[in-house]
């Protein structure tokens, strides 16, 4: 188990009101897992994904990734750790609008400060079927194409896990299915784990494992 979530709780303080988004959540993720996190809006799916993705710290509990407790890492170390081990796919794609498809996919590698292998970037773009769109900007692409760019960007660093927060929510069902098929295909070809959230039952059927969450607690 390369990711271990141990008794994680998350409380948000809004003025004098406390909201407990997660309550004592524990789970383990293996290499190559394809996990769907299901629950209604406000269940705590995004919070859990953010904590596993190391972009938010738990109020209590620990997240261990490759034997490292990420809660104890300083920001600079954590940023580089994220870049090396975790890929992200967002609901609204979150592509950088001034960059081309190639430049968007290349960006996570440029953060490392080393010379970028152009061939590798192009092969990743090819793996999501966008080889003819490398010089296009995001506003020239359809929703499905933009999400493919986001998938390529998540894959380019060869992460151990890709976290996708409702990756098909902004797509029509047909396009959404294609994206999930793509993620499955990539999961089969590489040993990258996929953890994605949805409240769509139709999408969840593709997962190897389904984790239900309600009011901040895992139901399984």
């Amino acid at each position, binding site marked *: 188990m390369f990711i271990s979530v141990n008794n994680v709780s998350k409380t948000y303080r809004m003025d004098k009101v406390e909201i407990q988004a997660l309550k004592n959540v524990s789970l383990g993720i293996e290499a190559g897992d394809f996990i769907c996190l299901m629950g209604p809006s406000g269940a705590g799916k995004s919070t859990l994904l*953010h904590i596993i993705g190391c972009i938010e710290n738990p109020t209590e509990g620990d997240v261990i990734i490759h034997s490292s407790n990420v809660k104890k890492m300083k920001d600079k170390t954590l*940023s580089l750790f994220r*870049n090396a081990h975790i890929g992200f796919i967002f609901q609204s794609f979150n592509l950088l609008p001034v960059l081309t498809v190639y430049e968007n996919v290349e960006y996570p590698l440029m953060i490392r400060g080393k010379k970028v292998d152009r061939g590798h970037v192009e092969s990743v773009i090819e793996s999501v079927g966008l080889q003819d769109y490398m010089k296009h900007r995001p506003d020239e692409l359809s929703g499905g194409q933009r999400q493919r760019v986001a998938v390529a960007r998540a894959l380019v660093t060869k992460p151990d896990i890709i976290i996708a927060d409702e990756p098909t929510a902004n797509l029509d069902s047909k396009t959404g299915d294609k994206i999930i098929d793509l993620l499955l295909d990539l999961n089969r070809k590489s040993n990258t784990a996929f953890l994605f959230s949805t409240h769509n039952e139709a999408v969840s059927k593709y997962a190897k494992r389904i984790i239900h969450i309600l009011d901040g607690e895992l139901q399984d």
Partner: protein
Amino acid sequence: MATIVIGMAALLVFSGNNTYLFKTMREHFVITQFGHFQIYEKGYVENGRDYPFDYLIKDYSNVSEELKKIPHVKFVAPRLSFTGLISGDKMSTAVMGIAGRPEEEKLMDPDSASNGSFISSDDPSGIVAGEGLLKKLSGSPGDSFTIMTSMKGGGINGMDAVVKGIRKGYGEFDQLGKMFVLADIDRVERLLNVGNSAGSLIVMLDKTENTGSVETAVRALCSKMGLEYKRWDQLAVFYKSVRAMYDMNMMVITIIILAILVFIIANTMSMNLFERIREIGTIRALGTTRMKVAKIFLAESVLIGVIGSIAGTALGLLISLFINSIGGIYHQPTMYSPAGYYTLIEPDIGSTLRYIILLIIVAVGAAFATARKAAKMAIADALRWI
């Protein structure tokens, strides 16, 4: 960016106008009053005012010849000052005069030289009188007066003086013009009984910019010959005080422009930040560090500062060219300048570079708070931003 462009152009044009004004004023004072250097007998600076006859440069021709050998020296003019009384048919009044060689005095007072005629070696009794003095005496060119003064060794002496030309003053407030007389130095030497002596030697260079390089040679010569000297900028007290006032004005205007720029840039960067919050969350999630995020914003502000100030320089130069092509900026008559005058725009490289650097610093400074805010943003909050 537009604000920086306009601000830079404004600074360039305004400072260029000041540069032209100061240069013109400087050259006016140098040419008409001080020269680039004034050479005196040793001790004159401290005691010459009280005991003028004891601190004259005797046989100054020798000194003049040595001075003329220094590179960049255009000419050397001997000067002798005197005070006394000038009397006409109707009244007498005090006079403060200078005596010099007509050829050199003509070069140093071109306006007077073109107002009627001028003093001449052929007619040592000729004088140029201040406009205010002639008005007081109810005189005009061609009229004769008598100048009386104390001589060296005691006693009173007098000379006949015929007004050849008028030195135009600046109206009611020209106190010197109400007492001024310019006369031939040979005639005044006899009047004062000082022999072949001068109170000072005015050294005129080919360019004011050569003052620094010539000073070493002047200093060495004075040391060798028992003389002392002053540079024009040590004598031009009025010029320096006017310059200081304009410099202060320029500084205030610069501060105001920079303050406006800081406010506008900070506001723009802040709005920019709001539009890019989710983008910041994304790049942070992908592994960009806080420091890198801050650097992105600061780098953008440097770019805005550089491009804006260069574009502003170009705009300022275009405006300068236009203003100069239509004859310059007209200034209304003042008490020191009864006729109006025009000033051109003369941008200088030093000031331009200083303003470019200043604007870049201001742009970075204005963006600093925004850069810090962007860097400190929580990733999850940024990603949730709508």
